[in-house]
């Protein structure tokens, strides 16, 4: 059998394959996956917070408050404030496609700013919660949480995906 030439080009070729592998491993760690269903995420989140001040949102609520159609996504978890003086809210959207992230994040940011405008000036406690809200896009998921447990909720969300 003919002996394979092992020179600089071959070396670089195989080195690049190793770079690809390392990069994919890095992405896996950094980006997270998209195979976790919203049901599992809901369970993880509700284990670190209570439903106090919130009520489960419907697809109509999603349309009303965020302008989003639930059918466009792989799954949605929505909790909305249960009275006019509450701001507690959790939204988790599992995207079908990563290109949806921008529009969902924009819708969540718009909702956040509407809430801020509503409470700014007279609801100090509520404004503080809104200002410490978490809005993140992680791989195939977008999360918005306005709650005193926002950090724990986000941590539970991260661990679950």
């Amino acid at each position, binding site marked *: 059998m*003919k002996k394979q*030439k092992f020179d600089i*080009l*071959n070396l*670089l*070729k195989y080195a*690049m*394959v190793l*770079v*690809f592998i390392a*990069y*994919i491993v890095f*992405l*896996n760690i*950094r*980006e*997270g*996956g*998209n*195979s976790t269903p919203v049901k599992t995420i809901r369970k993880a989140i509700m284990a670190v917070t209570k439903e106090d001040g919130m009520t489960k949102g419907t697809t109509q609520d999603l349309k009303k408050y965020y*302008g989003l*159609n639930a*059918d466009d996504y792989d799954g949605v978890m929505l909790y909305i404030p249960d009275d006019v003086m509450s701001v507690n809210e959790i939204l988790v959207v599992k995207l079908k*496609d*990563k*290109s949806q992230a*921008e*529009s969902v994040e*924009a819708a969540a940011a718009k909702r956040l700013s509407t809430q801020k405008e509503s409470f700014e000036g007279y609801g100090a406690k509520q404004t503080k919660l809104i200002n410490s809200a978490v809005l993140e896009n992680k*791989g*195939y998921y977008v999360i918005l949480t306005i709650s005193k447990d926002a950090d724990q909720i986000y941590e539970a969300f991260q661990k679950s995906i």
Partner: protein
Amino acid sequence: MLFSSIVFLFTFLPIILILYYLVPRPMKNVILLFGSLLFYAWGEPVYIFLMIFSILFNYICGLDIARNLGDQAAARRSLIFTVAVNLCILGFFKYEGFVLDSLSAVLPVDISYRAMALPIGISFYTFQILSYIIDVYRGHVKVQTNLLDFALYVTMFPQLIAGPIVQYADVDRQLHVRKESWGKFGEGSMFFIRGLAKKVLLANTIGMVYTEVAALAPGKVSVLSAWIGCISYAFQIYFDFSGYSDMAIGLGKMFGFEFLKNFDYPYISQSITEFWRRWHISLGSWFREYVYIPLGGNRVPVIKHLRNLLIVWFLTGLWHGAAWNFVAWGLYYGLILILEKYFLSRVLERLPAVIRHIYSLVLVLIGWVFFFSPTLGGAVDYIQLMFGVGANGLVDSEGLYLLTTNLLLLILLVIGSTPIVHRAYERVMAGRGKILANCVVYAAMFLLCIAYLVTETYNPFLYFRF
């Protein structure tokens, strides 16, 4: 970044154009490359590294194949290695979930995985890279020794995200020698604005009709609504994708490049064979050049020819999406093309043109159902609705409302998808003052698009997900 976004139209594009025309010739490719990487990184900051690694890997492999051309076996080994690595990368990012989900469905165990987000444009730029690698191996093109030029070929922002798939042989010379001119720039601007109008004014508007039908609860869709939904989608995808291609061709011209056309009024076709000569021409050419002909094309016994066609159409379906409905869509066309080739063409030839046209359109519309349905089962259900099975009657108030409120738009789209408008426009504009008249018409079209864009929500191109 989207071509149809304010940031692209009023910040990115003007800056890149000014820099491009200000710098001396040797720097022009540097500006274009820098702009292209920025364009991609804008939406995909993480995947820009994947693209850079792909460029480096394939640049090295191209050199390796070229130096081994004297030793056929070594060159072949190097080619196979390069193609395999490229396909593995595409497979991992695009098909991992599909393969594992399919295995989970048939195996008694549930395979969990961490699926990655799909890097935008990966199907397009991987095919461009493969065209270069294969052509170097075949000796059809010279190996590119300038890393910068090779990187520009892969990343060129006008056609990076959704094609046309530019074969290396078509732009090899243009990477070094191309001529920019005011005439070409003007022509490019017209192409671009025409594409923008197709996307913003037509595709997005008719897309809302399709969305309305898709949102109807099962059991509330009449036969009429189902057909309106399907026709709306057919127009949306045509004006969306051909609009993008026009913008890409136009941008190419502004920078002195000439890309081949990607669409040629597909909905006027009188057979499915003709339809595929007119729809996504660059993808069809790619599969013909790099899969169909190497398999033997039609110069083989009938059985092998059938195999070749089915392989090509299976892969065409799979290229479009990692789901069984796309595979079914590809095979659906494969079977129709086989039938046309061996039986139907003789029958079709004897039929009046109008019947041939209806035949083609009905089959294309049914094909789109596989394309827009989220699952294969969903596609079958929708097709049943179109033919009355499980439908809420033949005509209902919702269907009539959709028809009457969108009739004018639908008529406009029918006319717009034929060459009539373009020919009439050319005839009217043939006299003196053509340039001024063009400026006025296209400026008005551009302003109208901007008026739509500033009030519109994020609306990406349909082909971005491929």
